[in-house]
């Protein structure tokens, strides 16, 4: 059972990590589909 919970915890870590990495790398929809004339987060 311990291994099962470790794996579930790993799922959460991978998910949060993937989200952070992809955002940092500019893969979010708003970054990847907006042109230079678009102001984001304003």
């Amino acid at each position, binding site marked *: *059972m311990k*291994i*099962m919970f*470790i*794996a*579930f915890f*790993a*799922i959460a870590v*991978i*998910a*949060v990590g*993937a*989200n952070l990495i992809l955002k940092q790398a500019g*893969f979010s*929809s708003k970054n*990847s*589909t*907006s*042109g230079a*004339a*678009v102001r984001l987060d304003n």
Partner: protein
Amino acid sequence: MLRAMIALILTLSFLSTANAQGGDTPDRSATGGAQTLGDIMTRQRGEDVDNSFRSGATGDASRAAVISNQLGTLGGNSDPELWRALRFGSADITASNTGPAATVLIQDGGMGWLKFREGPLTTYGGALLMGVIALLAAFFMYRGRIKIDGEKTGRKITRFKAIERFGHWLLSGSFILLGLTGLISLFGRKFLIPTFGHEAFSFLAVGSKWVHNNVSWAFMVALVMIFVMWVAENIPHRTDINWLRKGGGIFSKGHPPAKKFNAGQKIIFWSVIVLGVSISVSGLSLLFPFEINMFAATFAKINATGIGDLLGFGELREALAPHEEMQYAQLWHAVVSFVLMAIILAHIYIGTLGMEGAYDAMGSGDVEEQWAREHHSLWVEEVLGETTNVSEPLKAPAVKAAKAPVTKTAKGTSAKAAKAPVAKTAKGTSAKAAKAPATKTAKSTSAKAAKAPVAKTVKATAAKPKKAPPKK
């Protein structure tokens, strides 16, 4: 008379041919080349209408009227011509956003996708899952829980190492999350909004999307892990034919011999790998929209084989709008996921409720020896055979098996068991085992095993009860 009949038949056949040809190219002179009532009726009957007479009628800039003329402000085109250019994707569009889809303002292929998604996909997909659940419930009522037939030994054999169980739970945990959030995304509008309202569903939908997009990476990592760890043991073997012929012993008495993975488990494994990879690739295509386009290229390859003509559905479209690539990817992703979910429901059933002792394999990693002998007799032979064939101390799997009796035997039979932890007859007669440590049932032991110095090694390991695996 005969000549007259032949002439009549030939005349009629020519007339029918002429009519058929006339049907292919309708006369649109009454509408000045625009679509006719006949075109509209044909479309409403669900039949295809060749749209080339419209898709090409998008105006001619070289014949543009001067600015002072009635159509001058439109660059020589009429409004309908501009709309047709937008509709058929030939208009010159400038957009502030980027990407292949930015300049596609009207994508009428989307209607087909929406209809399929809200119709057959939800209907048959939902029916498949409910049907499998109903079948499993019926099977449980008919067959009940598959029990361990023989007497339990109290000894354990390590079936899966910690890293294997980690990979399994990483895959299964992520798959369940992905399945649930995928179902919320697909069925939410139809079933959850009427029940919980828009606000609550909005929160749920945003959360589901986040979970679905990001947990997918754990699924893909786990898929690679289990492939690497288990592929060698899931290669088909001749014993699988016998196992399948006997239906795995589910409907009959007795257990067909099987190695570490029986044929049923191999089917699950390859289903997970093949369908899981397919889901992952289509999922990646959806995660990075318009970056990974697979369907136009696939359709071109299918057309090249001529399968379409052979099966009667003709040529597949090889030029797809960017959105259509995504729509096909979404439908494929969902259809394959439904199939895998149905298979996994059966897997979850047999691994938990359906079979006594099966869950331990992934729970603690150690299974009851009798369970292993019944369901994976050849694997037990391999595991114990390895240990009994060598004079060196027992290797990992059998060490636990040897250690187990000391702690696992509940009613003080540890001493007895310790004398012959590896040896075992079909009915668990420890007395006999004690006298003949290495003797085993005819099916599960080799002559070599009987001669091997098992008892000596076993005693050595059995003398360390503190290191035995934890009790269930």
